[in-house]
């Protein structure tokens, strides 16, 4: 490693909070070498984004830099004034934001937005600017055609928008790029394409990057070194491979343990971290001590600075040499063998159409699906595949254009207000975003008491407490407002609100995707327990196949409103695969999995014709015209797995490569144990 491109020394930052300031970044030091990708990982609120913004010299009145320096280009970024910063930002240090939709100005053509940057940093010749913009678009895999420059952001897909943002960051050949969760808002397949692009750019341009994310799995593919943050402190820095195979800090171990693994066939929950970060109650010493299984008195009392732990590794822990023995693997849950023969919900030939006339859009095409009593059926697919639409149709938020939905044999009215109170009680909905699903002005007790009062005519404090206890929250939460809860706690309350009505079917719409990995693991364990104890059936919508593999009894893969494949969990995760399922599995980022070479990934060329296969046009295994003109038949294995494809099952089995691509990982897992 040569001299670092950027070196952060003892950085401490505080945010204004009420009358005083609270420390969000505490004495953090790290450096990034030329051509290196440094990953910064941690749960929300750990201070990682604050550091990213500091590296751009971002200052806000609500923020105070208490100490430290950021060495860059022979100067200290923190000491520069506004004019000097403007010269560096965009030119020498660039930024890729989390959400491209809000980062791009919706009123300016994308070409002009890049033009702006080039002009601001001294390129006066308009023709050269256009040429450079076209070159940049080519670099990030966008069509480098003049007409593409004239598009507005809303005419691009999310992935294309993010590519524009990346092109913008690269415009002036910066020495250092800061990426703040650049793929978090995108769906799996797009996410994978962006990561592939970044890996490619890194190899070609030899840029240094700081990659901020909460997704450890992703970092394993792109980062050279990873810094793990907890409650504003850097707790461990290690080369990526070593971090995953041999994490030293107990927090890192917990974090890696909580990642659901797609190859895990056991259906056992990830091992969640104990407890929650309680910011008001941090000890003097290690912030992680209250949640640590190895903590001793010294951990609470004395602060441990980041110290060398052999090789290029650094760790801030008093106890790390004593805990190198890997702790036990995932905990075991006894799931009773349920017989799902008794049908609870039947969805028969349901179609949903949005809009009407010329603008009519077929969101669901002739869907048939059963859910047994106590059974968990997962709906999988990328955004726009109709997963949420199906759940909303079941809930009665929109009426199907054709077909019917029956609960325990009784036909349900299309719209919720036409259904009987009992029917409304038996189906409960839990939403994706815990921030929006609780009334911000109602205390938790009120939010939970209302369904009781509404459905059972009475509510008591005891019932509310019992419901909170069901989701493992103690009594004190009942007097809280939602803004006093963390995302995970709010999601528990939202689940409790669903359970309190004693439903037989819980509709879970991406309920884990807004949460941190370690919190996810907790909620997942909670769901598994509810499932086995109460026998509640679930329609579980998720784009995360690893989560699905842990929780679901049966999986249904949707694409553009059509079922591609449906079967038991073990069947879905084994050959034969539907081509789409296969591509989804390949796209899952897994720790240390070498990036798969995707042959023939195609962007959607045209809207699928109503007659053919919905996946035709993007399918890597497409046979020919038949896919576009003729609806594929159902192919069924003897065990009951159903795949909708023109290929025969034998052919599909033959083409499958998925689990092998991850075989390296299995060895790593052995090394872990």
């Amino acid at each position, binding site marked *: 490693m040569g001299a670092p491109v950027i070196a952060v020394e003892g950085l401490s930052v505080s945010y204004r909070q009420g009358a005083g300031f609270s420390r969000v970044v505490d004495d953090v030091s790290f450096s990034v070498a030329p051509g290196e990708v440094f990953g910064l990982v941690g749960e929300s609120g750990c201070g990682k984004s604050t550091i990213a913004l500091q590296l751009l010299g971002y200052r806000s009145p609500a923020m105070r830099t208490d100490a430290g320096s950021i060495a860059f280009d022979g100067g200290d970024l923190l000491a520069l004034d506004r004019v000097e910063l403007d010269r560096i930002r965009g030119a020498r240090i660039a930024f890729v934001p989390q959400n491209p939709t809000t980062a791009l100005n919706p009123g300016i053509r994308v070409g002009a937005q890049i033009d702006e940057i080039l002009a601001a940093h001294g390129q006066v010749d308009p023709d050269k600017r256009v040429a450079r913009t076209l070159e940049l678009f080519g670099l990030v895999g966008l069509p480098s055609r003049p007409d593409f420059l004239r598009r507005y952001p809303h005419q691009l897909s999310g992935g294309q928008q993010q590519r524009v943002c990346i092109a913008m960051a690269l415009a002036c050949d910066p020495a250092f790029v800061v990426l703040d969760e650049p793929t978090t808002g995108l769906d799996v397949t797009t996410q994978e394409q962006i990561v592939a692009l970044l890996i490619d750019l890194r190899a070609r341009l030899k840029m240094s990057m700081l990659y901020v994310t909460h997704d450890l799995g992703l970092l394993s593919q792109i980062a050279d070194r990873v810094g793990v943050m907890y409650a504003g402190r850097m707790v461990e820095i290690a080369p990526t491979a070593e971090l995953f195979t041999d994490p030293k800090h107990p927090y890192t171990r917990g974090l890696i343990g909580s990642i659901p693994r797609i190859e895990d066939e056991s259906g056992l929950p990830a091992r969640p971290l*104990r407890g929650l970060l309680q910011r008001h109650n941090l000890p003097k010493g290690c912030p992680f001590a209250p949640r640590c299984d190895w903590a001793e008195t010294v951990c609470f009392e004395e602060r441990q600075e980041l110290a060398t732990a052999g090789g290029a590794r650094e760790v801030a822990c008093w106890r790390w040499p004593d805990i190198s023995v890997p702790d036990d693997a995932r905990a075991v849950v006894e799931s009773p063998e349920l017989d799902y023969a008794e049908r609870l919900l039947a969805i028969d030939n349901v179609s949903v159409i949005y809009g009407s006339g010329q603008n009519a859009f077929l969101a669901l095409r002739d869907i048939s699906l059963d859910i047994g009593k106590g059974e968990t059926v997962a709906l999988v697919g990328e955004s726009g595949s109709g997963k949420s639409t199906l759940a909303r149709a079941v809930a009665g938020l929109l009426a199907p254009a054709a077909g019917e939905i029956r609960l325990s044999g009784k036909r349900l009215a299309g719209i919720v*207000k036409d259904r009987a*109170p009992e029917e409304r009680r038996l189906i409960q909905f839990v*939403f994706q975003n815990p921030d929006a*699903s609780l009334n911000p002005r109602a205390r938790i007790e009120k939010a939970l008491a209302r369904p009781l009062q509404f459905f059972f005519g009475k509510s008591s404090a005891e019932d509310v407490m019992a419901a909170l206890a069901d989701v493992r*929250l103690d009594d004190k*939460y009942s*007097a809280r407002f939602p803004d006093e809860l963390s995302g995970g706690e709010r999601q528990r309350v939202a689940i409790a609100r669903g359970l309190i009505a004693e439903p037989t079917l819980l509709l879970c719409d991406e309920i884990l995707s807004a949460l941190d990995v370690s919190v996810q693991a907790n909620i997942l364990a909670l769901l598994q327990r509810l499932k086995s104890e109460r026998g509640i059936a679930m329609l579980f919508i998720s784009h995360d196949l690893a989560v699905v593999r842990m929780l679901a009894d049966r999986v249904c893969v949707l694409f553009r409103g059509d079922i591609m494949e449906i079967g038991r969990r073990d069947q879905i995760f084994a050959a034969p695969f539907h081509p789409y399922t296969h591509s989804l599995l390949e796209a899952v980022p897994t720790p240390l999995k070498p990036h798969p070479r995707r042959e023939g990934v195609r962007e959607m060329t045209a809207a699928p014709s109503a007659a053919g296969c919905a996946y035709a046009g993007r399918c890597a295994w497409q046979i020919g015209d038949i896919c576009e003109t003729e609806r594929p038949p159902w192919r069924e294995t003897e065990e009951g797995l159903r795949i909708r494809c023109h290929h025969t099952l034998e052919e599909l089995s033959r083409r499958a490569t998925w689990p092998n691509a991850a075989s390296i990982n299995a060895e790593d897992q052995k090394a872990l144990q």
Partner: protein
Amino acid sequence: MSIETLSAPPARSTRSLSSLFVLWRQTPLSFRIGLIILLIHFVLAATGPFWAPYGYSQMGTGRPLSGMSWAHPFGVDQLGRDIFSRVVYGAHIVILLSLSGTLLGLVVGAVLGLLSGYVGGWFDEILQRFLEALISIPFLVLALIAIAAAGPELSGNPVLIVLVVALVYAPRIARMARSVAVDIATRDYVTVARLRGESAWSVMRRELLPNATSVLLVEFALRAGYAPVLIGSLGFLGFGLRPPTPEWGLMISENRALIMVTPITVLGPGLMLASLVVGLNLFTEGLARILGRTVKLGVQ
């Protein structure tokens, strides 16, 4: 496997009496100043008639049109009435009429607007067009039409004035409330209530209203501030309260011709009106922040 029970961090207590002072210190400054100004006005309104130096229609209290003096802090009008006494007597009239009129307009407007925004469809469409039609009529004209429709025997009746203020304000408040409701209605917690089968009324009361309070309160303060002016204008045109009622707006318009001679005769009631409006605005702005939980009260 065991899943841990989470324990909430210690709560902020708002119960104990000793913490009242601490709570007061935590309230926004605007809330405190506004509350003090309003309290002064209320005390004036409640006790004024008992200690005002002169009666409100007592003539010949001093030399007409004489300026400020210790005996007549706000001067003396053309008829020799003491303006200060009239202002003090008028306080309860102004506060009662404008606040109750605005409050009525707020209640009607908020209910209509929130329901309209939540229910949508034809109900919303028809109601909005109707309200727009009302808004398109200049408010003095609308008020005059309403008063004319009520008939001459009711003219000058305080109850009619209150109803007219409400009629003028309700459509405007309803539009504001509707735009807020349209936004809130798409939130998941409203969807949850709808899935439960709650009636529109119940959704409005439990989910929409609590989240619309800050907007509605600011709207209330602003409107309540203009209400005395509206009532005054009606009085000036001969359709409001009748002289010699010591209503501030009426006094301003009565004395407006004298503004070059003795400006204090207009400034006195004007100042009182202004401080009431400012006080109301500060108070409601602060209250909105407390209810909106951008400022959190409580003792650790």
